Every structure is written in C-alpha cells, then in structure tokens.
C-alpha cells in the first residue's frame, strides 16, 4: 500500500495516480481501473498542458520561417530531439529521427536499409515472440529482395534462448530484429547478449523498444544495438509520434525512404540533394505538438525516476502474479524469470472476450485478443488471452479490483 510511501523508497503512487486526470473518471458507473497501459498509456497533466501551451502560444511550421513563431516551434521541436537523445543516451541528435511511431521506425529501416542492402539469400533473424510490427515489415522487404526470414524459438515460459539465436545466425545473417520486451508475454529479452552474438557474425541489430522504454532504463551506448525504435504513447506521451535512433554511419549511408519537404537541401527537376541527418528521414511537416508532448513525457518520467518506476512496477508485478495465481482456473501465459509489468492470462472455461466484456462492466480495462502477436498465440495454442499491464500510476488496489472482477466473471459463468 502506498499509505506508507517510505516503505517503497518514497514512491508515492497515489500522488502519481493523481497526476493523470483520466484515471479519475468512471466507466459504466464504476471507478476506472486502467490495466491496458501496454496498449497505450495515459498522459499526465504536464504532458497535456505542454501540448496545450504549444498549440495556444507557439505553433507554426518548423525549419521554415524566419518569423518568431516558426523559430519558437523549431526550438521546441529540436529541444524535444535533444531530450530524447539524452533519455536513451544516443551519441548525437543526428541519430534521433522522429517517426509516427515504432511501426514506422521499423518500416523505415526495412525499406531504406533493407531494400538497398539485402540480397537474395541474405537472412533476417527474428524471434518467436515478435509483435506483427516487427514481422510484417521484414516480410515485405524479404519479398522485395529475395531475403529469407529465420526465427529464433522460445520455450514454454516465453524465454528466447541465446543458444537458438546463436544457432540461427549464419554468415548470411544481415540483421537481427527483436523485441526488447515482449508485448504479449512481458519477457525481457537478453538484448545485450543477442547484440553481441549478432555483431560477432557481422549482422546488424534492430531492437523494438516499444514495451521496454516506459518500464526500464534504456542506455543505447551500453546496449550497443544499431537501431532502436519506440513510441511516445506507451511512455505517457501523445499518439502519432515515435523515434528511430540509429548509428550515424549507417543512417548516413542509407537513402531517404520518403521524399518531400524538409528532407532536401536543393531541388531542381534534374537533381535533388538531400538534407543532412536527421532531416533526411523526416519528409514533410512533422508532428510538432507530438514531439513537444514526448519531451514533456520524458520530463515527467525523469521527475519520478525511471529506476523508481521500474522498482514500483516490479513490486506490483510480483503482487499481481501472486494474487492472480490464487484465482481458480487462471493460467499465466508468459512466465519468464525476467518480465516487465505485463501479465497475459487465460481463465479456464471463459473465453478472453467474454472476460474482457465482464471486466469492462466492472470498470476494469484489460486488453483481450491476440495482442498483434498471432504467432505467440499459436505457439501457446490459445486463440487469445486477457492481458493486464501496469504503469507508473498502477496501484495495488487496481490488482485487487481485477481479482474481484475475475471472481464476478466466474459468477456470471457459473
């Protein structure tokens, strides 16, 4: 309980909870219990206000006008880039490219790097627990280039084995694309080790960081990967903006993937010269207010401390796992020793969709379905699961509300 904040290193979850206005609303006449942060987290007041202030006072197009507003908007947009750089410890702002989200960031690499570098018979190595966003872009580029997709397996706990990654690497492997944290299972992958193995065989590494970035410290200098992708809306920022961080030398050598304004230096009908990094990959007017919101989200996370958020969520994960395992007929899908605060589960005799509806009627929001990870569902031989996911604002009382709602579901189906 947060009644005694000192007990948990001074992390006052009730105060954090109050920072998120939406959490105070009701759903179907009951207090909202939001346990779907892995799909999209909520935004704190500071993010909402930062975006609002930008829209009210500073908006104009960036990198274009000499007028005051354009300069202010440009300064805020570029300030956001520097905040992102510092947050993930990238070497330079030239390595920080704004995208629409993780999905677009991965597609950027697949199309700009992959389409130009991959040759027939080259191999792309994925893992068995990937989100569709880290499968389909590679299938598209494999079709275009004749490259081959290989998949490193996982065990019944949802752990990807390093041995299997090593066994699937070959001299033809050009890139390993894998999740940092699994959205469907919560598994934290040993990405530093995977990167080491891949680099030893001369392959690049792209990490899908969408589910890692809100939960744990991400230090790219330490991880050593070549590309890292994430979305703002899973880390308390707005939708429609995300980031690709890439090694400068690689990005420099990659051709633009979309053409338009902002990504050029000069254009004539004969010849266009491209802008420098990172603008080469940011064609068109970007999501400026989104970047402002992302910067505010980073400020917010840093005001709480990502390590303290991590510790809080891990306590909650432990508590929730213990309580859920006491629910008769409940099976947790994804039992890796190292997990983010995500619990996928099934309840014997009640289909996840019925569960989702009953929980919703109790005010409890969980995700039900295949979580955009159909191969994972196939592996565990379930059509779908229910998934409760936690964030910095999640409380023990939310876990209790979930277990009460599960008991109610049992009642309805008795």
């Amino acid at each position: 309980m947060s009644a005694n904040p000192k007990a948990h290193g001074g992390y006052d979850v009730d105060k954090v909870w109050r920072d998120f206005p939406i959490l105070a609303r009701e759903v179907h006449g009951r207090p909202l219990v939001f346990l779907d942060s892995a799909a999209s987290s909520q935004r704190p007041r500071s993010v909402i206000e930062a975006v609002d202030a930008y829209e009210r006072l500073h908006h104009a197009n960036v990198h274009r006008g000499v007028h005051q507003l354009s300069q202010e908007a440009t300064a805020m947009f570029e300030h956001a880039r520097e905040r992102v750089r510092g947050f993930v410890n990238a070497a330079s702002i030239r390595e920080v490219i704004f995208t629409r989200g993780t999905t677009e960031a991965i597609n950027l690499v697949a199309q700009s790097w992959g389409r130009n570098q991959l040759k027939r018979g080259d191999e792309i190595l994925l893992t068995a627990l990937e989100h569709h966003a880290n499968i389909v872009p590679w299938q598209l580029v494999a079709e275009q280039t004749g490259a081959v997709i290989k998949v490193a397996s996982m065990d019944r706990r949802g752990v990807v084995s390093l041995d299997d990654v090593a066994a699937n690497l070959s001299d033809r492997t050009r890139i390993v694309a894998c999740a940092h944290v699994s959205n469907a299972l919560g598994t934290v992958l040993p990405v530093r080790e995977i990167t080491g193995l891949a680099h030893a065989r001369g392959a690049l590494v792209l990490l899908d960081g969408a589910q890692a970035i809100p939960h744990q410290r991400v230090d790219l200098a330490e991880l050593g990967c070549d590309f890292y992708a994430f979305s703002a809306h899973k880390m308390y920022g707005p939708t429609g903006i995300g980031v690709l961080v890439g090694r400068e030398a690689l990005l420099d050598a990659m051709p633009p993937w979309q053409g338009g304004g902002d990504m050029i230096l000069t254009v004539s009908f004969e010849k266009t010269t491209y802008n420098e990094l990172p603008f080469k990959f940011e064609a068109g007017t970007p999501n400026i207010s989104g970047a402002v919101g992302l910067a505010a989200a980073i400020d917010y996370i840093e005001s709480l401390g990502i390590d303290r958020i991590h510790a809080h969520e891990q306590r909650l994960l432990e508590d929730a796992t213990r309580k859920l395992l006491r629910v008769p007929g409940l099976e947790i899908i994804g039992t890796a020793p190292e997990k983010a605060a995500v619990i996928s589960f099934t309840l014997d005799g009640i289909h996840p969709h019925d569960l989702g509806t009953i929980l919703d009627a109790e005010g409890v929001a969980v995700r039900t379905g295949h979580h955009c990870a159909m191969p994972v569902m196939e592996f565990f031989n379930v059509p779908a699961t229910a998934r409760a996911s936690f964030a910095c604002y999640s409380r023990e009382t939310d876990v209790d509300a979930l277990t009460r709602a599960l008991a109610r579901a049992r009642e309805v189906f008795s």
Partner: protein
Amino acid sequence: MDLKDLYREVILDHNKSPRLYGKLEPADSSADGHNPLCGDRLHITVRLEGDRVSDLRFEGKGCAISVASASLMCEAVKGKRRDEISHLFHEVHEVLTKHDAPVPEDLGKLAALSGVREFPVRVKCASLCWHTLNAALERSATTVKTE
C-alpha cells in the same frame, strides 16, 4: 449496460452444452468462418433436401456469444427452407444491430441474442455463424447451378 442482458440463461446454457455440435459426413456443403480479430473459428456442415436444410452441425472455438449464437442458429434453421433461413437471418441481424428494433415474436429462442446490441463490439461474435451458414448455402447454390 447490464451483463445479465448479454449473458442470459439461454446463452450460458448453449455455450456450456452446444446443440448440433460436430460435423456431418458426408455433407452437401460446408463453410469456414473466421474472425481474425478475436480468433473465433467456426466450421459448418449442412445436408440439403431440395430447398431445405435437412440437417446441419457446427464446430469450432469462440467466445460464449459466438458458440451460443451458432448453437441457437443451428437449432432454429434445421429443417427450414432457404427463404425462411434468409428471413430469419435478416431478423436476427436487425435485432443485433438496430438499437430499438422490436424483437419479432417468431424469433423464439434466438431472441436471447437481443442483449448483444448493447455491446457493439460483440455483434461480430453473434453474427459470424450466420455469415458462415450463408456462405455454405451460397456455395451449394453455386454448385447446384454449375451442375
């Protein structure tokens, strides 16, 4: 929004013990229904006598609404003519989707599905079986035509 309205006794009963569950072999026609969003899968086999569905079975996996709806549908359409079935489908569709459509008296047990309309995201669950049956009947119609 009342859960009791969605999960009525009839629905829970048909989910627990689905009627006409299984597979007809041989069958005159069959079709697969799949709702990729939620993973519901359904296989329907039918036997025809002239214009009449003399027998049918369904099998598959899905939520309580989709299983109960398939079970109720199979019971309701068994022995009926194609035109009667398409009339029923129309009525069920209205009841599922139109918020204040009156529930026709000739729906019988199928009326239990009317609670679904308060839960718009679940309408697909209830209608999957009807679309699948339709596909099976259309397929047999085509077959009949080409022969």
